[in-house]
């Protein structure tokens, strides 16, 4: 068993199919009626974009936070539809090829099957470990990977790869975005509560790094051990109500409580239950992310309504990360009029490249590790509170490089 559960050549939604319909209608119209128009002379381009996903339903402390079944894939589908609307004018056609494996499966066999089907551009929503298991095979096969899920800094540092682009922000970018806001608010004394799982500790590391970078002080840290008892149960809320105040008792004077709990074991229980009344930020409360379902600035209304219309739900960060990756490919294929890996890669890696993604400025890649520079949204369950970088955090080249690991500190050596 290779862990392959489901594979399909997606276009599932009606809108998507309709996009195809339009495409054929228009291409034939163009070539039939306007042979002289400059776009119809172009040869047609067939661009397959793969989507590799390691999936299992995730637990969350609040039922509102349980990720939707199509998280990420939905964003890629909307981008494919956008690319096809553009493509119909140029004789270009985009399709999405989705492959899903079990959460902790070996993804290599599934990946190899995608390559055998002809996928040369693959969006990967897999763990750091899984991504590294395919990165070098991908390189040998001439495949470009887009990491749309993993926030691990190591993928952009020690384990960076020349054929892996990252549209997901790193934990350090998220923590820096949050830290800049806290410092701008003059909330400089932090308490750090972190979970016992590996990813929680990595988030806590990013918070510690951000504190030292932006002049904040972590006055105390506390570890919350996952004993497997705190999850949502009938009596859980009652227990938690008594547990959280005690857990946050006798802390030194502090401005905010930062929770580092990506595993959703205790973090969402902290707000409103701390011993002293303090704002809660981090993975619960005020959260830093690449997108927010309520972001409407910078033309965001358009993508939000397009997404909602097509999927029936609001757009989440992973949807935006997948949308951005698939749009980057669309942009490169439109501009180069080619779906050849070499041309597409050269264009994305050139100075000419930039992408608009409803964040108020053009986004570009850091050419030392192929991480997408991007503003970080700071929001709660209700709306966007702020966007980092904050005013006054200056940088020699790009203010966006005040978020995350910058060129002089990078451990990435691209070969």
């Amino acid at each position, binding site marked *: 068993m290779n862990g392959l559960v489901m594979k399909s050549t997606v276009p599932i939604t009606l809108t998507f199919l309709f996009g195809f319909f339009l495409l054929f209608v228009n291409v034939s119209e163009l070539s039939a009626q306007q042979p002289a128009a400059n776009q119809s002379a172009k040869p047609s381009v067939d661009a397959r974009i793969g989507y590799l996903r390691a999936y299992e339903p995730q637990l969350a402390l609040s039922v509102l936070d349980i990720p939707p079944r199509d998280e990420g894939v939905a964003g890629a589908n909307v981008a494919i539809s956008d690319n096809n609307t553009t493509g119909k*004018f140029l004789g270009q056609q985009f399709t999405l090829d989705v492959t899903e494996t079990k959460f902790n499966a070996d993804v290599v066999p599934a990946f190899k099957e995608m390559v055998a089907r002809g996928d040369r551009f693959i969006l990967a929503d897999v763990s750091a470990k899984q991504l590294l298991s395919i990165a070098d095979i991908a390189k040998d096969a001439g495949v470009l990977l887009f990491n749309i899920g993993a926030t691990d800094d190591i993928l952009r540092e020690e384990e960076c790869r020349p054929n892996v682009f990252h549209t997901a922000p790193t934990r350090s970018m998220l923590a820096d975005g949050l830290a800049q806001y806290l410092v701008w608010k003059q909330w400089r004394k932090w308490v750090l509560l972190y979970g016992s799982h590996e990813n929680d500790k990595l988030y806590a590391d990013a918070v510690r790094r951000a504190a030292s970078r932006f002049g904040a002080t972590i006055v105390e840290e506390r570890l919350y051990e996952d004993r497997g008892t705190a999850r949502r149960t009938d009596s859980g809320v009652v227990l938690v109500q008594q547990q959280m105040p005690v857990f946050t008792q006798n802390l030194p004077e502090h401005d905010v409580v930062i929770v580092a709990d990506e595993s959703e074991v205790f973090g969402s229980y902290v707000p409103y239950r701390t011993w002293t009344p303090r704002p809660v930020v981090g993975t619960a409360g005020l959260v830093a992310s690449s997108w927010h379902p309520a972001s409407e600035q910078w033309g965001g209304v358009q993508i939000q309504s397009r997404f909602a219309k097509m999927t029936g739900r609001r757009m989440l960060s992973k949807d935006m990360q997948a949308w951005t990756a698939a749009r980057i490919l669309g942009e490169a294929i439109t501009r180069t009029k080619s779906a050849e890996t070499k041309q597409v890669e050269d264009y994305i890696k050139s100075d000419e490249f930039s992408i608009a993604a409803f964040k108020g400025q*053009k986004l570009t890649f850091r050419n030392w590790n192929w991480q997408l520079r991007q503003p970080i949204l700071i929001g709660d369950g209700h709306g966007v509170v702020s966007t980092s970088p904050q005013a006054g955090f200056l940088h020699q080249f790009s203010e966006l490089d005040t978020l995350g690991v910058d060129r002089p500190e990078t451990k990435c050596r691209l070969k």
Partner: protein
Amino acid sequence: MRHHMCLLAAAAALPFLAQPGWANMVYVSNEKGNSITVVDSTSMEVVKTIDVGQRPRGITISPDGKIVYVCASDDDTVQMIDTSTGKIVGTLPSGPDPELFILSPDGKTLYVANENDNLVTVINVETRAVVAEIPVGVEPEGMGVSPDGKTIVNTSETTNMAHFIDTSTHQITDNVLVDSRPRYAQFKPDGSEVWVSAEIGGTVSVIDNKTRAVKHKITFDIQGLRSEQIQPVGIRISADGKKAYVALGPANRVAVINAETYEVEKYVLVGQRVWQLAFMPDGKTIISTNGLSNDITFIDTATDEPIKSVTVGQLPWGVAVAPN
């Protein structure tokens, strides 16, 4: 009707014969204020505020100055305001989320960009009926019309194209790729070129209207500002075709460009988030809307110095000036 057409033709041919010093009403759409502010161009003071539908953005005025058209984006309609009474006298079936539109030179046809539906809707203003819907790229926004009325150009913000549409057939004849988030399309008065601003790309593409190819790309460089802050939006070109003005969004400036050499000659500091522009009929003044400072700025086109800023409503977006 024929008589009316002749008058219009005469007015179009001799735009500068009007006496200077005439007071013209300036109509400003306030995106968040859900209102139109009316400013007297001579006194440069607010004379009236008209409540309109939700999220008014695109605004234009009929050639005879009698009707102001406003895109009430969130109400999915175009509202018509009688300029003599300041009352809303009708609506046009614009299709969903109208953002920007352009009136044909004869004032009879309105072309509306429907941002959410990837369409341009063509409306007969007299019958108030939809004549055609033209599928375009993702997030259509900018609309320009050639002086002869035969061609319209629509820009689509995520597709990054300028679509050239033949107004007799309602078919797209050419698609020209430009830089990221094209916002606005403006023909030169002689019809030889179309200028298209790219908000995120930070450029203005000059498209040759004969070859339908980009012949020049104008870039901007302002000392002390990062390139990401320079986001070109509204464009106006003087009647003699010699000078162009480009609103630069969060750069808070209007660029003054020699429209023959494409050199940027000056940056005029106005207000925050400069969005759209409109000339006074005599061409001696140009007005900018400054969204975040909630004001408009009158700029003297002889000196290219700001004359005065006037506070209007919340988040001013577009501006139209009554003809003489």
